[in-house]
């Protein structure tokens, strides 16, 4: 069933034992349940800080794949990690966990909205909740920046990408078409020093 054995993961000996199906389900369910205003900060906290399934750098290196694949990046992380640890059923357990509570809560909110559609409470709630959620996103981005290898190459790539997409609002496709091959070529030239 498992096409990728745990041995395929480097430094497998130094990490805790492989999570079970239930642990995959449970941990991603908690991420889904608590992920107000975006699940990525919660997913990083669970995977890196609480469960230590991945190091900071491994998480940062998994993100490009999860981001470039269609669908929410955290759903893709759940799929890839579930597959790595427990194969297809592991992916199913992780993704099911991630979506279980959000689906129930969203549908309940939908029914509540039908009954009390003109309530100003939603606006009030969002006016405080969303700035806080934006703060969590910024903190997660900062944590990922400091997790990258400390060299000028990484720092310049982060800054150029941020300037192009965040500040100048250039089309994402063009930015990736230029920076993707350039960044890959730069990494190809430098040795894979994983320290």
């Amino acid at each position, binding site marked *: 069933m498992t*096409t990728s054995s745990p041995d395929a993961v480097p430094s497998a000996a130094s990490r805790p034992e492989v999570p079970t199906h239930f642990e995959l389900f449970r941990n991603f369910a908690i991420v889904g349940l*608590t*992920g*107000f*205003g975006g699940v990525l900060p919660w997913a990083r906290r669970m995977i890196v800080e609480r469960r230590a399934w991945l190091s900071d750098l491994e998480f940062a290196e998994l*993100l*490009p794949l999860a*981001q470039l*694949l*269609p*669908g*929410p990046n*955290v*759903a893709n992380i759940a*799929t890839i990690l579930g*597959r*790595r640890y427990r194969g297809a059923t592991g*992916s199913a357990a992780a993704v099911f966990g*991630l*979506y279980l509570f*959000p*689906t129930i*809560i*969203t*549908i309940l*909110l*939908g029914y509540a*909205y039908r009954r009390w*559609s003109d309530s100003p409470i*939603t606006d*009030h*709630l969002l006016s*405080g*909740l969303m*700035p*806080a*959620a*934006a*703060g*969590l*996103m*910024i*903190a*997660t*981005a900062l944590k*990922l920046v400091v997790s*990258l290898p400390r060299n000028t*190459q*990484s720092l310049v*790539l*982060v800054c150029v*990408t*941020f300037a192009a997409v*965040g*500040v100048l609002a250039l089309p994402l496709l063009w930015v*990736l078409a230029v920076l993707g091959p350039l*960044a*890959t070529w730069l*990494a*190809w030239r430098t040795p894979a020093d994983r320290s």
Partner: protein
Amino acid sequence: MWATLLDLLVHGVMWSMLAVGGSNVTLADIQRYTVETRHWLTSAQFVTFYSITQAAPGPNGMAVALIGLQAAGLPGALVSTLANCVPSSCIAFFVGGWFEQHRDRRWVGAVRRGLAPVTVGLLASASFVLAREIDIDVRRIALTLVCAAIAFRSKLNPIWLVLAGALLGLSGMM
């Protein structure tokens, strides 16, 4: 009823597979189809549904569950949710698996290491753009900065920051 469910399924699958880089890229097309073509909901309802799912916990793109609920009741919501997450997860399973099997190849490693800083730059951009849209006055900017600093420096469970923000909002201070 069955025709609507099939419609939700087919379009949900299409949006799921097209959502490269996150669910927000398909938002405009979802709005065009569900509001203007099908008239399942009004433009104002679409915006409200999006806000509700932003505040609710969970991955991006859950707004389609509410659109499905509006169009075809509970079965519509469930069909939309499944159409939203199953196809993209299947793609992630096979492509991700391919990458894991070939992770020792030099160019795969170069792609992974090279794209990491670019992706982090994209996330920094996304959080900057998000903050710029949300933080329309000084109080909101201050709340974002305080939350960012606390979440970055401490191991405090972020749920307390979200709750504090929600309470500040409900109290009418924001």
